[in-house]
């Protein structure tokens, strides 16, 4: 398979699966303002996914659209991070995931917007502004919850800890990213990511999560059990009517 196709698919799948989870919060958020904010964030993620999947289809040259790629691939063909597919927990869990993921995306898109591939650079240039807002939103909430009440502190700590074992996967390097000139080698982002995330965690009065077993496999299509269910829901109407347009 074409390296650029696979690389673009990785980024697109991250955004798509993250959007699907974020959208689950709409009409279930702690307050109306947050329904609006999470709706915004989910829409940004979905918009990034659409641009990236459209481009992936174009790069592949097999005439697959964004919808072909989103609705007619099976779980072993999805290349997203496991962090994105984990089921939603409480609101602190959601903000921990957003802090981890959006900080990573922000660093990644900042690099990618200067890359030689015009399309990827364009998508990254737009997305970097969006994810800067996501980082800010997550940061504000991690501070409020970490330094709010006893209960919110406990929940914030639990969210940060529960997702920590899924963070190293973001920074895994492999032959593909080293071979593909336009790709950002994610291992180069890790130190700055840790610096930024730890600064927020410290200010929130939570403790830094301790080093732990780290999950891996999303980039090669090995996922948690949860992705199958997420895709079953996402894909079922489209697959029930093959060839239909909507």
């Amino acid at each position, binding site marked *: 398979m074409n390296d650029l196709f696979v690389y673009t698919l990785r980024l697109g799948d991250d955004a798509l699966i993250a959007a699907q989870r974020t959208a689950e919060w709409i009409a*279930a958020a702690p307050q109306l303002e947050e329904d609006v904010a999470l709706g915004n964030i989910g829409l940004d993620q*979905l918009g990034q996914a659409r641009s990236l999947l459209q481009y992936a289809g174009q790069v592949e040259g097999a005439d697959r659209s964004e919808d072909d790629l989103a609705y007619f691939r099976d779980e072993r063909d999805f290349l997203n991070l496991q962090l994105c597919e984990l089921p939603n927990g409480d609101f602190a869990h959601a903000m921990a995931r957003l802090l981890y993921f959006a900080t990573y995306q922000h660093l990644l898109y900042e690099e990618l917007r200067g890359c030689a591939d015009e399309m990827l650079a364009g998508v990254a240039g737009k997305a970097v502004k969006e994810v800067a807002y996501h980082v800010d939103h997550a940061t504000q909430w991690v501070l409020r919850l970490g330094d709010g009440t006893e209960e*919110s502190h406990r929940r914030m700590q639990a969210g940060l800890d529960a997702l920590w074992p899924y963070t190293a996967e973001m920074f895994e390097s492999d032959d593909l990213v080293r071979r593909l000139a336009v790709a950002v080698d994610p291992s180069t982002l890790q130190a700055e990511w840790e610096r930024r995330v730890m600064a927020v965690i410290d200010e929130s009065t939570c403790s830094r999560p301790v080093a732990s077993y780290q999950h891996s496999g999303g980039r090669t299509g090995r996922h948690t059990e949860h992705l199958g269910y997420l895709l079953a829901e996402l894909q079922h109407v489209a697959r029930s009517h093959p060839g239909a347009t*909507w």
Partner: protein
Amino acid sequence: MLAGMDSFQATIDADGRIEPRDAMPEGYRKTLIRQIAQHAHSEIIGMQPEGNWISRAPSLRRKAILMAKVQDEAGHGLYLYAAAETLGVDRADLLDLLHSGRQKYSSIFNYPTLTWADIGAIGWLVDGAAIVNQVPLCRCSYGPYARAMVRVCKEESFHQRQGFEILHTLCNGTPAQKAMAQDALDRWWWPSLMMFGPPDSASTHSEQSMAWGIKRHSNDELRQRFVDMTVPQADVLGLKVPDEGLSYDEETGHYRFTEPDYTELYDVVKGNGPCNQQRLAHRVKAHEDGAWVREAAAAYAGKQASRREGSAA
């Protein structure tokens, strides 16, 4: 005080706008609080039947449009609650009234969304009916409500077009898609007609609201307007309105139609609809699950304020 009430009546008579600081009769204030709050509740409960299809929307474009639409509804809820707050009530108290069942929301949202076509039908019929109800509210005598309605109506008209477009695509698609569209119209037609409330002969709130310039047209007038607008659109879609009594009256230029079964409306309003329990339970759960978050935000804001005070001293 008398002078205040005189000027209230003079403003109403001149078709002017009452603003938050103006004197107003207690009944006027109460009626508006009830109406605006129930309108706001309808927006946020209405997020559920449509939100039900975000995860399953059959294309990424449709998913994005639906997310944006449900988000719009949250936004409508926000500024309607803000409009109600200009009358001296609190959003938190209004939410308590909703959660405890003491204030209602539009009973249309107590029907389930069973297929993707229902998302089209809600946009086309439910938002269509909402527009017919709400356009006259842009001229409501209470300024903040009238101004909120101007913005709401603009967005609703976009929602209605996207609903029609969903159905138009289905009706020009496969036989299964077209059947899905017809089934949705069959189920949503009668509840949509009920959105205009009881017939004029049985409407309890209408007369006073008309005199105060809150309400501009009777329920039956608005219902007729909706039918006249919608039937030709059903023809464009190639769908059959499920009313054997439907016919065009050349003389009046209006459609004759069968009245919906109002006992069903009264029943659903009382709490006996397919989704009443589910909708309220979901809302209450989201609110209760979020309580610790709202408490934390308040506690944090308090700490920040005292830190600022400490550093200023």
